[in-house]
């Protein structure tokens, strides 16, 4: 694999499997009383978050800490970023600490790739605008493999606000690489023109939802909407909310969080056996440990973990 993880396209199926197998062994470490391994002792990981995040930032912090790295977390609020420092200048400043890795979350597509061109550190894209969120896709695949063993032949529906979703873009690619077929469904105003070019089907209705083995529900991203893409949340909920009446037995439900309870997803579904949402969160730390390990230590030393 390349030096950075900027896009899920940086990985082929084999690369994804290698990371997820390592994540599996890290998940076992997480079950122990002492959860740390010394793999990154003496090395520095910078977490640079230009957007609010709970799951992703905390799981990256925990992942780096459990690999014994020194961790610096920088958030836009309260830092020189807030004072108007450019991304390039911020990276130059942080590079002075000689980090082994920079994990970056940005509201702008391509930010992680830009950073990769400006630093010697390995760069992990923790979400860049509406473009990609590759570690989310890895943990989604990890979660499905834990439950089902394989994604081959699986029919996965991604439902909701595809237009504003970086998770959807990374998942469509990752799920297909792992052998699943993907359908995206949502209001026509929230399905990007040309999305079929990614190899998925697209439909504006949930009529054929029973075909799905897995229903991956996207968050309605009000914060990214400067105009009305749907007439009302009520109309959205009436047509697209995933709830018990729309699901058939045996279907699994996923969501990248944070959930708008009662909007895209009914509260009862979240707490039901069909939901993999809790498992997705638990997978986050192990998968991000595996990504940092893969980039910074490489394929050579799996023995150090066991």
């Amino acid at each position, binding site marked *: 694999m390349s030096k950075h993880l900027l896009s899920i396209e940086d990985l082929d199926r084999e690369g994804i499997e290698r990371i997820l197998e390592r994540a599996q062994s890290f998940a076992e470490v997480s079950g122990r009383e002492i959860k740390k391994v010394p793999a990154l002792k003496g090395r520095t990981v910078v977490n640079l978050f230009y957007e609010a995040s709970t799951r992703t930032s905390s799981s990256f912090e925990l992942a780096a800490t459990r690999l014994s790295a020194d961790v610096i977390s920088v958030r836009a609020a309260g830092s020189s970023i807030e004072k108007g420092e450019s991304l390039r200048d911020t990276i130059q400043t942080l590079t002075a600490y000689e980090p082994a890795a920079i994990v970056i979350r*940005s509201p*702008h*597509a391509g930010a992680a*790739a830009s950073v990769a061109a400006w630093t010697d550190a390995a760069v992990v894209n923790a979400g860049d605008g509406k473009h990609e969120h590759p570690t989310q896709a890895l943990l989604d695949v990890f979660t499905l493999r834990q439950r089902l063993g394989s994604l081959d032949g699986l029919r996965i529906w991604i439902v909701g606000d595809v237009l504003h979703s970086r998770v959807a*873009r990374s998942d469509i690619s990752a799920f297909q690489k792992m052998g699943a077929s993907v359908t995206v469904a949502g209001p026509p105003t929230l399905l990007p*023109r040309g*999305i079929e070019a*990614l190899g998925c089907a697209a439909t504006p209705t949930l009529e054929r939802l029973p075909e799905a083995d897995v229903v991956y529900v996207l968050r309605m991203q009000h914060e990214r909407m400067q105009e009305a893409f749907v007439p009302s949340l009520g109309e959205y909920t009436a047509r697209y909310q995933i709830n018990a009446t729309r699901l058939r037995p045996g279907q699994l439900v996923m969501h990248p969080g944070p959930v708008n309870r009662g909007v895209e997803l009914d509260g009862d579904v979240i707490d039901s056996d069909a939901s993999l949402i809790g498992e997705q969160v638990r997978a986050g730390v192990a998968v991000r440990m595996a990504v940092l390990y893969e980039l910074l230590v490489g394929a050579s030393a799996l023995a150090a973990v066991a």
Partner: protein
Amino acid sequence: MTERLFHRPAEAAQLLIRGAHLLDPRTGLDAAHDLLVRDGRIAQLGAPGSLEAPEGARIVEAQGKHLFPAFVDPHVHLRTPGQEYKENIATGTAAAAAGGFCQVIAMPNTAPVIDAVTVLRSLTTTARQQALVPTGFLASITVGLQGSDLSPMAALADAGALGFTDDGKPVVSAGILRKAMQYQRLAGGVIALHEEDPTLSGAGAMHEGTVSARLGVAGIPSISESTMVARDSAIARYEGARTHFQHLSCVESVQALAHWRDAGAPVSGEATPHHLTLTDEAVRSLDTRLKMNPPLRSEADRQAVIEGLRCGVIECIATDHAPHARHEKEMPFEQAPMGSTGLETAFAAVYTELVRPGVLPLALVVQRLTAGGALYGLPVPRIEPDAQANLVLIDLEARWRVGEHGYVSRSENCCFHGRTFNGVVQMTIAAGSVAYEKGKENRG
């Protein structure tokens, strides 16, 4: 008559250019000749080896090279006044000369906007001191490019404005545009339009299509341009207003222009080298040099623009040279400003990507690269005895990598950066003086 092109006076060229292949689509010239320039004018053409250099004339050995009428760019941003850190009149016109241009027309979206006679006068004064090639100016249609109140168009035309544009922005209000077109009967000049419906383009940063869907970057649909071309053509015909559409980028716009030309609307169009040679596929890298407005579009759009240029619906090539400082372009794609430089690469890009593969004839490309001034009523450079020398000497076989030796422009945001092209400009003669000679330029 009002003076409408401005440049720094320079020494009149005395040159014998020997053995170059002369090509001028307007005079039908297409063969090797000697050409004598005396006192800045084309004095004589003769068979290769037939002309003697008179006293004081410099001999340029040009066998194997091509001599064309020098190019005219009806659409450049020289960033003066107010944004001289991106470009100024001296550096921008030096870049023009390096690209083989003998005339450029500068856009008014400066700071302040060219919406007042005082601003235009200060620019023409500066151009007389600094411009290496004759430079014309458009003034804004509306005050401050705000789209609400007309600029003093008649006074601006009297002060030398060639026409009017709010380039960088559309004139959103059909009512305001109609008034400008009515007022044009008094003021004269051409109304040039950047066509974009902002309610359709929104916060878009690239062409809306499969690539934007993959990248998650908000798209600018082609209809944001074409619907305005259609709307404004209809108004132009109704008012009989001479109107020019800038940087056309998509199938539907070319179709709309062709339709309204056939219907008798006094409309014309231009295309940029980047829309003729690149598509949104190139934007997959999110390289901000490839971010411009209108955006690089689909292959079908590119083909339509080429066909429009070939059949003459689009009558000229314009670079939309839009310099931005390095720190402005070193931003995430969605935040970076729109625009690419283009003066130094225009001929080489079109020649390499369209002429060499046989898509367009060389003579047609030379015609379209020299046609941009005529639409504003400027004289067209020609290769014929007694004409003012406006010539460009190019080595078509020489190859170069864009940016390898820096740029003459103050900025380096060229969408062709790193590409290898055929066609190296050896010398540009503008208004009778040598404005550029390879190896003697200043590069940043």
